[in-house]
């Protein structure tokens, strides 16, 4: 018999990674051009954390999944229209700035405060999920900071797999150098797990899951508290697109034999 889990997934929203991005300077610091216009998606790593959470929760009856997300309310609503169809969760939205440039410590403080106040959350059973990095800031620190603030000292990053055991303990596979996984066994919750891509395919859109989620998501969004993030002494000296442009030699008229010979010589050269 699995112990019921309380999984809180921290997930930011990010501009669809396939969009063209361009930095600009705003009165509040660096930002992205057209930030509010760019289509947003749930951060890809956090999304895998959410899907993994749903699968783990399904294995342990009585479990519950919360999604804590900080972003502009209108954007959150837009992203939820897609995400809510994937898996069942309860949303705890926070109305705040989008983007990669605010300080991670400030984000973590707000998230931790929100999680600590989640009604019905049993901190002893808490598995804190999120992405090991994000597609915005990519710092890979927010989740650790939230964990520290909640007093959790079993933390794992780059997680690709979690195997729950009947006694409440679990085995974790974390990505480490050299394309390998470090295998650990943790005695059980509470713990922090920052997910890499995991092994799950994106769940199918399920309209019934969506309908059920939306009953709580829309009211939660209406009540989302607005926050301002502290700068914590962080200042930007420059924010720019890289200018590297290579001069490309286009080779059109060589036979495969000639190309292979040239490539072999290039590969062999020091």
């Amino acid at each position, binding site marked *: 018999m699995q112990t019921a889990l309380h999984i809180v997934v921290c997930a930011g929203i990010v501009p669809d990674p396939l969009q063209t991005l361009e930095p600009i300077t705003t009165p509040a610091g660096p930002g992205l051009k057209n930030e509010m216009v760019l289509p947003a998606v749930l951060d890809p*790593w956090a999304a895998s954390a959410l899907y993994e959470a749903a699968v783990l929760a399904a294995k342990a009856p009585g479990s519950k999944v919360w999604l804590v997300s900080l972003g502009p309310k209108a954007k959150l609503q837009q992203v939820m229209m897609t995400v809510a169809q994937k898996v069942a969760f309860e949303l705890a939205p926070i109305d705040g700035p989008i983007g990669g440039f605010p300080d991670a410590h400030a984000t973590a403080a707000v998230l931790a405060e929100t999680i600590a106040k989640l009604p019905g959350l049993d901190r002893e059973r808490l598995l804190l999920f999120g992405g090991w990095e994000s597609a915005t800031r990519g710092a890979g620190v927010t989740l650790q900071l939230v964990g520290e603030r909640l007093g959790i000292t079993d933390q794992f990053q780059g997680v690709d797999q979690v195997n729950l055991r009947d006694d409440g303990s679990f085995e974790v*596979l974390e990505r480490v150098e050299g394309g390998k996984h470090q295998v650990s066994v943790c005695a059980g919750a509470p713990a922090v797990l920052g997910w890499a*891509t995991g092994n799950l395919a994106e769940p199918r859109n399920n309209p019934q899951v969506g309908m059920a989620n939306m009953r709580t998501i829309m009211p939660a969004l209406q009540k989302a508290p607005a926050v301002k993030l502290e700068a914590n002494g962080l200042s930007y000296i420059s924010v720019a697109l890289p200018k590297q442009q290579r001069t490309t030699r286009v080779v059109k008229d060589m036979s495969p034999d000639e*190309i292979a010979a040239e490539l072999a010589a290039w*590969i*062999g050269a020091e």
Partner: protein
Amino acid sequence: MESILVLTHADETGAALTKASLEAVSAGIELAGRIGASVSIGIVAVDAQAAGAAVASSGARLLGVFGEPFGQARYSTDAAACEALCRAAQATIVLAPGSSRFTRVAAGVSHRLGGFIDTHITALGGTANIEASRWFYRQRIEAVLSRDARPWFLLLDSGTHAAFAGEATPAQVEQVAVQLPLIRTTVSGLRAPTQGAQTIRPDAKLLFVAGAGWTKKQPDGQTHVPEAADLILGFLRGAGASLGSSKSLVDQGSEGQSVLPFLTHLNQIGQTGATPRHPKGLATCCHGEEPHVVGWRFIGERRAVSLDANCGWTRGKADVVYVADAFQVMAKLNALIGSVGA
């Protein structure tokens, strides 16, 4: 005056520092010289004394935590060790390698010390103030930032600084006592993926990037996936290359299409994958522009085989693009390097 601490850790032997740690040491010494700061080196190892030998000639103060609990990379013990080292050094600036081990704990440690952290630092500039460079939005926007608050933790990306290469001499490492927490996690070891040879290996000289074109219909209207797999694996064997892949190719796996069986998300480079730093890269059957191409932004020399001379993956991004059928070129190339290697 700033007080710089460089946090380092041992490799799997427990008695020698990792290359990434040595890179952080040289970064710390260089920075200390430039801004006029004191520098200490903190060592997390089973045998910090032995591990310290490699950096003894640096002239820095050496601090270490010793013992079996530090032989394993684990949050609770590593965080306690790093916290103790930072307190002992009274550091205002903490540099550390962005290894999986320190990436796991450094943020938590910065919080315990009331400090702040920035990661994936690629360069440290400035004299009056430290100016740290890092990338945002998956290597698509480069920023230079600074912080007033201290202590300030900076995790350095590997490969951005030369490794410290002083002569190894017996070291005097001051032992720092650590209040060990309750250990609830045991590390059972490392597991290599079953397809060991086909992951992104940073030590390889060449990164071979396979794009989705390999599994698409070829001019005869058919797909040739088994042939593509043979050509790619043949090349990896022959050239000793590391394998990266575009997201679109890796993603096909969950689609139930016939797809290259040895590819996983561990091979993925680009927007939601790795950004490796191999000296050379060869891209085949790749297509895309800005968001995808960040996958090989840090590759040294880049060449590509593509049917589209105007492809965004190559134009302005590669040194040479060969407009040709990759199936034909790779078959010939494999024959050549096979004979060289034999």
